[in-house]
């Protein structure tokens, strides 16, 4: 059944979390994502579903509350924006090491440093390559609409528990702030304590004397043990790369040129693609939806059939490195980016395509 509503992207995240049966939200205000917590505080799910909502004293505390909640097997969520997510890297690395499921939303703004409050995609490397210390990945979803902001909450929780791993929704200030209609699924009840214990036998939530005590940690002082943990993680990432890749292609069948873009940039590229086709240039769009796992195989196959690719990002060239690694044949791959909070226009994209790929 569900329900159709007009909402901001940030609000859609919050509403979807309540409906997904999320147990707790822990966050700290930062523009442009504060609506997530504001929405939750207005809705007061703690009085309806029993979901805990808490404003932490910092992003450092928020991510460690997430670590605590996730370590007991509960479904927990935090959201922040770039400078705040930088502060969270410690906790994310610990969660990856302790194999804890949790959902982290980054409504990206321009950096580095305090940067700007305008939208950006400059946290691609941080999200996709690890961000914190140690060899780890998160599964990273890049929504391109308010609808996907809502959808990826449930999907994100599902894969987080399936693989016992932190998952990130990497969006940006524009999608967080824009209003669109969104279809919201019917609420599912939160798991009971019994169900939590059954789903997460590894979690530390009180030891019945029938089992050994559970320990949540990322520490192993024995190098052989720590290497074993790393191998387990690497095997998990291999499985994720095998099974969880998501992407979208538009008009790639007859295309000579491909625009590769994620999130907001992909929306702009869709318009740019139409403009280019009006000019007689056969352009298709390839949109990675999961940034880790990256759709390597699909881009590799596509590259064999086209004359060139333009990677469009709101950063100085980050995802292009993964595209280059994936392509593996000799076609021109160029980057067009605006940064610091500037959103590229479709005209700029077409011009860049003409100048750097077709004419280049």
């Amino acid at each position, binding site marked *: 059944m569900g329900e159709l509503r007009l909402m901001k992207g940030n609000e859609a995240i919050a509403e979807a979390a309540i409906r997904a049966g999320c147990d707790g939200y822990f966050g700290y205000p930062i523009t442009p994502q504060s609506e997530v917590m504001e929405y939750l505080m207005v809705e007061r799910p703690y009085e309806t579903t029993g979901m805990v909502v*808490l404003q932490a004293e910092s992003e450092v505390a928020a991510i460690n*509350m997430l*670590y605590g909640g996730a370590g007991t097997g509960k479904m927990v969520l935090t959201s922040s924006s770039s400078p705040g997510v930088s502060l969270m890297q410690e906790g994310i690395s610990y969660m990856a090491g302790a194999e804890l499921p949790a959902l982290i939303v980054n409504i990206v703004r321009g950096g580095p440093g305090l940067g700007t409050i305008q939208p950006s995609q400059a946290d691609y490397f941080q999200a996709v390559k690890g961000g914190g210390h140690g060899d780890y990945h998160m599964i990273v979803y890049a929504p391109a609409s308010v609808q996907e902001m809502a959808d990826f909450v449930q999907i994100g929780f599902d894969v987080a528990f399936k693989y016992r791993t932190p998952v990130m929704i990497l969006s940006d200030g524009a999608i967080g702030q824009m209003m669109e209609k969104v279809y919201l699924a019917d609420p599912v009840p939160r798991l009971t304590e019994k169900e939590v214990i059954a789903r997460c036998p590894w979690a530390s939530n009180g030891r019945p004397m029938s089992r050994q005590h559970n*320990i949540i940690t*990322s520490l192993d002082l024995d190098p052989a043990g720590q290497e074993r943990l790393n191998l387990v993680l690497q095997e998990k990432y291999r499985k994720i790369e095998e099974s969880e890749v998501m992407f979208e292609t538009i008009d790639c069948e007859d295309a000579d040129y491909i625009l590769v873009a994620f999130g907001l940039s992909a929306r702009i590229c869709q318009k740019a693609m139409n403009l280019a086709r009006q000019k007689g240039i056969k352009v298709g769009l390839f949109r990675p939806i999961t940034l880790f796992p990256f759709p390597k195989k699909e881009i590799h196959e596509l590259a064999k059939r086209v004359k060139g690719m333009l990677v469009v990002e709101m950063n100085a060239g980050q995802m292009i490195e993964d595209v280059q690694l994936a392509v593996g044949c000799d076609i021109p791959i160029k980057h067009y980016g605006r940064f610091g909070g500037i959103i590229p226009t479709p005209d700029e994209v077409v011009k860049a395509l003409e100048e750097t790929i077709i004419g280049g």
Partner: protein
Amino acid sequence: MEEKFAHPELRTPENLVYKRTDLLVDCPLSYCPGCGHGVVHRMLMEVLEEKDIASKTIGVNPVGCSVLAYDFMNIDMLGAAHGRAPALATAIKRLWPDRYVFTYQGDGDLAAIGTAETIHACNRGENFTIIFINNGIYGMTGGQMAPTTLPGMRSSTSPYGRDIDIMGHPLKITELIAQLPGTYYVTRQSVQTPAAVRKTKKALRKAFDLQDEKKGISFVEVVSNCNSGWKMTPVQSNTWMEENMFPAYPLGDIKVNGELVK
């Protein structure tokens, strides 16, 4: 080995008056000889055993000497990042309100890197217990200066003694958090004598009893020795602690039933 003064005939179950609780895992503790951590671990586990709440208790241990506390306490545990234990415990207690939750933290963890998490968890009036081991030094990393290192006290990063003009003052975090409306019971104890151990156990018992009342943080500081870090024998370090630490960190209740003890 011949035990000259042994009385095996006395060693019967009905004559047993004290044995290490089974809630401590049957393995050697990783602490230095004479370190107070082991005593606090044991008193804590005895309290859980006597209250019969081991299966309903979730512990959070820190980074520091007690980073491996989860190996020794036979209950469900989470190892926090350095200083973040109160953040974990906050979420755990709110998500599992009928569980008994505690953090176990050292002075560097609680009063330096984790000051914000400590103060805000205390100020929110979270309903868990904080156990704070104050030995005035960073033990695990090799005896560096801690927030609670005394003026003039030597450490590997204050080799000529803590010069307060350069290194600042020791932080009396326990007095500080006692001022916060979210703390309900704040006490400072020690474990170097049998009487002190009994008092510490009583304080821990009270702290866990208070979790039932949901009136805020119960906070038990234990002033402890670090004979390795202080470069003394265990017995010397206990004497030094009584003569030097106790005047700076006086023992006793600081806040009871939400009221400061005058």
